[in-house]
């Protein structure tokens, strides 16, 4: 197989190298690849939204499902100019308010159940872990104890520490601050790792394409 027979691979190869040329400095080739990427993304999303939302809604309306006209009307209300002083101009807030209310209503149970209830429970239970023979598993037990200290101290730092002169709360809050920083640092490191893997994937693609093509 020759990559010159495969126009898609060749285009991807050229564009990948064009984007990598941006490492050196901004240049016309890099800017072309950047603009092309933005344009193609916009086109791709427009097509996806058309086939996922507009076309099915249109078909439903033609099929007699007139309820679909309500979201259409709500969408049109968003186009009322924000500086308009017309009598009914505040109607534009209705769809936005509806979206906020529905999103909040759906997210509150999810947040409460997932983040408050279950996350804390799964962090500390079981407090003492046993193996099949009934012996204590020291690593798992230590992990649970550490989780309790982390969760409690981080909450002290975020909630109770402000404007409080209690020495215990302040000290625990400082420990909590350490754990919060560890969490932020690890999230940053994981993101960096993910981008590195992506970079590595593109390098491998270039090498493979070069191996096949030349």
């Amino acid at each position, binding site marked *: 197989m020759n990559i010159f027979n495969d126009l898609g691979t060749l285009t991807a190869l050229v564009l990948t190298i064009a984007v990598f040329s941006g*490492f*050196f*400095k901004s240049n016309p080739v890099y800017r072309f690849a950047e603009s092309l990427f933005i344009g193609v993304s916009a086109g*791709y*999303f427009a097509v*996806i*939204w058309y*086939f*996922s*939302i507009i*076309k099915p809604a249109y078909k439903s309306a033609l099929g007699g499902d007139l309820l679909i006209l309500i979201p259409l009307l709500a969408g049109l209300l968003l186009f009322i100019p924000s500086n308009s002083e017309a009598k009914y101009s505040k109607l534009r807030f209705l769809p936005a308010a509806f979206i906020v209310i*529905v*999103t909040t209503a*759906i*997210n509150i*149970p*999810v*947040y409460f*159940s*997932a*983040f408050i209830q*279950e*996350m804390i*429970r*799964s*962090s500390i239970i079981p407090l003492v872990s046993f193996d099949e023979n009934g012996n204590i598993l020291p690593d798992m037990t230590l992990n649970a104890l550490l989780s309790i200290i982390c969760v409690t101290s981080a909450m002290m730092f975020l909630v109770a520490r402000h404007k409080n002169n209690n020495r215990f709360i302040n000290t625990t809050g400082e420990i909590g601050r350490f754990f919060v920083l560890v*969490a932020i640092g*690890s*999230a940053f490191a*994981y*993101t960096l*790792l*993910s*981008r*590195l*893997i*992506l970079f*590595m*994937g*593109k*390098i*491998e693609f270039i*090498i493979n394409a070069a191996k096949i093509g030349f």
Partner: protein
Amino acid sequence: MRDFTKNISALLAKVPQWGLIIPIFFLMLFHYFAVIDEKKEKDPEPELNATPTESEMKAFKIIDELPQDSKVLILVNYGPESKYELEAAMSALIGVLAEKNIGIAFATMIPNGVESAFTAVERSIENGRFGKERFVYGHEYTHLGFIVGGNIATYLIANNFGEVRERDIFDSSTDIHQPLVSEIGSISDFSAVFEFSSQTFDGVPGIVSFAVMLKDKNVRKVAFCSSDMLSAYIPFRGSVYLDGLVGGFRSIAVFINEFQPSLNIEKQYHILSTILFYIIALVIFSNLIKMTTKNKK
């Protein structure tokens, strides 16, 4: 000595960003051609040297115990930005499911994820050891398309799957053309639900939202997530919302090594560890230089 380090730091300060990235790039190329290929000749099957964690073992067990001829739902919530990490895992899973003759229904909740399922299927079939002669759309697998609405879409999938599965991504009626999903009435008819994810929905992992909203708590849920999503998924790994988690490149490498060794993930794993070594060395070196010059001032 201090003058020497000062000179080096002054020199490094003048080096532009590309001056650091290009050497790393060439080191990687050198490593790829010189070390990995040479190692492959000496030892054709390098070992991964990574053991599965408890949550990974749970995920493996669920996959192992999936009954023959059953059906699973795969939520494909990743796009090209995490393709390198998650596509190999998904194609490995597709290979395992195909061997057991398990039907697969794909769905995505992000626009970027529409193509990801098809490319993973393609990659899985291209793998020389795909254990099935025919893998036909509509019979062995189907794609229900982009389900719009974030958490609202999750609610629909969890509790009103009959409506979600009515039409596939090509807008054809699944009842008429697809024996695979025509037998599925609700989410409970699936043996397991898998999520491949590189993003959250309003800060909550998709599979967790799905599990919270799910009325049938017996449905088994396994998540595969990219490295940048690990901090969002890890807190739920011991919870009732997640029966198994394979998260990050290390876990994915372990999974592929366990289920589809023919995909040769060890090579990528070794390259990544080498690059990380170079970067850590670079960071330590530059910080040492900074510290020395700071003390001088």
